[in-house]
């Protein structure tokens, strides 16, 4: 605790340089754009921007990519409110009341309250990271191979349980991700596995290639199939005359904002839960707690304030397990973890002690980024609205060419482009068959660490699998994993989940 201030000072020192402020700005600006534009999600966007960060210092790269991620949460709410079209899945519930508010000519207050709520939630979860992060890391420093294996197993099972669609398919996606993660040279023996003699695969499949295929290419193909076009949407732009919410609005929103912040910051910690679940939960809570539940769906400001705070709070707190345990809980965090590894930083509890400038710089930059977003979002609404009017038939060729250049630049060989195409087609097939890709990419990133820790644990125990159960912490994780599974397998819960 007494170390917090020097640490935060280090963070400010790192984050508030002209260079890093600029990267933070680029990140949140691009992120808002991604959030506004339909048809490209934060995961694909991080994958697209990742190759351009290779030559940057690690801190700057992470600051920019993180900004992209939480900026997208802000952007997603803008389209929900103005055009009834969620830019991100975490803003789906914002459509319910946000769009109704816009229809009544209250788009300004809706956008403003979403931004203010997001800022409050962002500030709170940033503080949570700076308190909880080091504490968690200290506990996990005691972990050895069996604990890590069980922790990762629990994380993966959690992500399967919270994924959309049938549980069995989500588990199968995890196993598929583990297999993809094995491609490359086996660290222990130097044997090349699943490389098919291709020299480009000796270092394994690049996460950029996999994510861009599964999330970018597949998404665009699906959109084209639906005959997606943004033209002819009902834009409620003329009506934004007053931006700022009234005192009454603020009074009605402060409760939902604080509750949303708490819900989001907590749910963001759980594997696989993240922003989507928290925004739905917050909406349900507000509807139950509100004095006028009948107003929900008809433009209640509480229905915007709560979920928008929750999704941003969750977006930030998903960083905690990623940074301190090395366990990503969403697809976007899997990519952030991939970015760390590309910059030769071994993920895990040692990140904070070995790279304090990175950890604290990132934490502070998130707070700075939230402030930038609060200032930027409202004045720039006109720009975002204009961006929304760009027809999809101009948009998707642009996104595709950026993807192609990004992937090619990884190796300067056509091979990576073809590999991305392969994963893109596979990702499309998965989408078609209603298999959620997020658990796959989590398992892909964690795969090598899962295997490594399994091997080490079994070596220590001389091949006795009981080692995972005789060590109390490890057993605790496994029991928790089984409890989550059993709980979700109960028919009643299973139904509400769908």
């Amino acid at each position: 605790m007494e170390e917090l201030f020097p640490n935060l000072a280090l963070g400010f020192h790192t984050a508030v340089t002209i260079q890093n402020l600029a990267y933070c700005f680029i990140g949140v600006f691009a992120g808002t754009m991604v959030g506004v534009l339909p048809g490209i999600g934060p995961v694909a966007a991080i994958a697209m921007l990742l190759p351009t960060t290779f030559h940057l210092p690690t801190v700057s790269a992470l600051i920019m990519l993180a900004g992209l991620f939480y900026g997208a949460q802000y952007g997603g709410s803008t389209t929900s409110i103005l055009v009834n079209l969620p830019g991100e899945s975490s803003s789906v519930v914002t459509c319910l009341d946000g769009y109704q508010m816009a229809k009544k000519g209250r788009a300004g207050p809706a956008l403003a309250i979403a931004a203010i709520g997001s800022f409050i939630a962002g500030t709170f979860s940033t503080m949570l990271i700076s308190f909880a992060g080091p504490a968690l890391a200290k506990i996990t420093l005691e972990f050895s191979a069996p604990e890590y294996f069980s922790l990762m197993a629990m994380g993966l099972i959690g992500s399967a349980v919270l994924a959309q669609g049938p549980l069995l398919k989500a588990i199968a996606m995890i196993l598929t991700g583990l297999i993809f993660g094995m491609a490359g040279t086996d660290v222990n023996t130097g044997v090349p596995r699943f490389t098919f003699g291709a020299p480009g695969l000796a270092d394994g499949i690049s996460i950029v290639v996999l994510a861009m295929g599964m999330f970018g290419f597949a998404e665009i193909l699906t959109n084209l199939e639906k005959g997606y076009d943004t033209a002819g949407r009902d834009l409620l732009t003329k009506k934004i005359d007053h931006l700022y919410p009234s005192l009454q609005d603020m009074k009605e929103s402060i409760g939902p904002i604080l509750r949303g912040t708490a819900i989001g910051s907590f749910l963001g910690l759980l594997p696989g839960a993240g922003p989507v679940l928290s925004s739905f939960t917050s909406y349900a809570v507000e509807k139950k707690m509100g004095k006028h539940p009948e107003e929900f769906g008809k433009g209640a400001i509480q229905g915007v304030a709560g979920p928008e705070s929750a999704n941003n709070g969750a977006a930030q707190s998903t960083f905690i397990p990623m940074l301190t345990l090395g366990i990503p809980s969403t697809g976007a965090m899997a990519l952030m973890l991939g970015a760390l590894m590309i910059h030769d930083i071994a993920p895990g509890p040692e990140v904070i002690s070995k790279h304090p400038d990175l950890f604290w710089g990132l934490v502070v930059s998130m707070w700075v980024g939230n402030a930038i977003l609060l200032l930027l979002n409202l004045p720039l609404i006109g720009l975002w609205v204009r961006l929304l009017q760009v027809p999809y038939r101009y948009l998707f060729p642009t996104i595709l060419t950026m993807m192609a250049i990004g992937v090619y630049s990884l190796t300067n060989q056509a091979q990576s482009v073809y590999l991305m195409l392969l994963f893109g087609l596979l990702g499309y097939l998965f989408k078609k068959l209603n298999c959620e890709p997020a658990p796959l990419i989590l398992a892909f990133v964690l795969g090598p660490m899962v295997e490594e820790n399994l091997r080490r644990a079994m070596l220590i125990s001389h091949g006795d699998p009981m080692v995972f159960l005789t060590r109390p912490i490890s057993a605790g994780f496994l029991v928790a994993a089984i409890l989550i599974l059993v709980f979700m397998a109960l028919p009643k819960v299973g139904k509400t989940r769908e």
Partner: protein
Amino acid sequence: MQWKIKNKEEFWSGMLFLGIGIFALVISRDYFIGSSARMGPGYFPTLVGILLSILGGIIALRSFGVEGKEIRAVSWRAIVMLTLAFLIFGWAMEKIGFVLAMFAMIACSMMAGKKLRLLELLIMSLVLITGSIALFIYGLKLPFPLFWW
């Protein structure tokens, strides 16, 4: 119980997972398995391959029991054009340079949409090619030759 595929979505996802599982098993036959105390490179892939094959089989079998919705229609035009776009782009980047690779990419992907207007294609190509030369080749200094010479 009738032996009829009631849920195509489940059936084909099961078959896909079964396929990936068996594929992993076949490939990892060549890797040394070792023992559970000293795992070789083949141990984990074989383990995961077996689990995935079993799970895929269960998912496929379950599809005979539960009713499910039909799979949405496939747009072959978009699939073929986007596949071509990336295949040609990869080849062209290595052989005939950035400008033509970009043009092929843009042309193919625009053909994936509903209808192609020539003027739109020309304007899009001009904007995207000059823009990305400025951004990627001059800005980020990526070493792409513009043409084949």
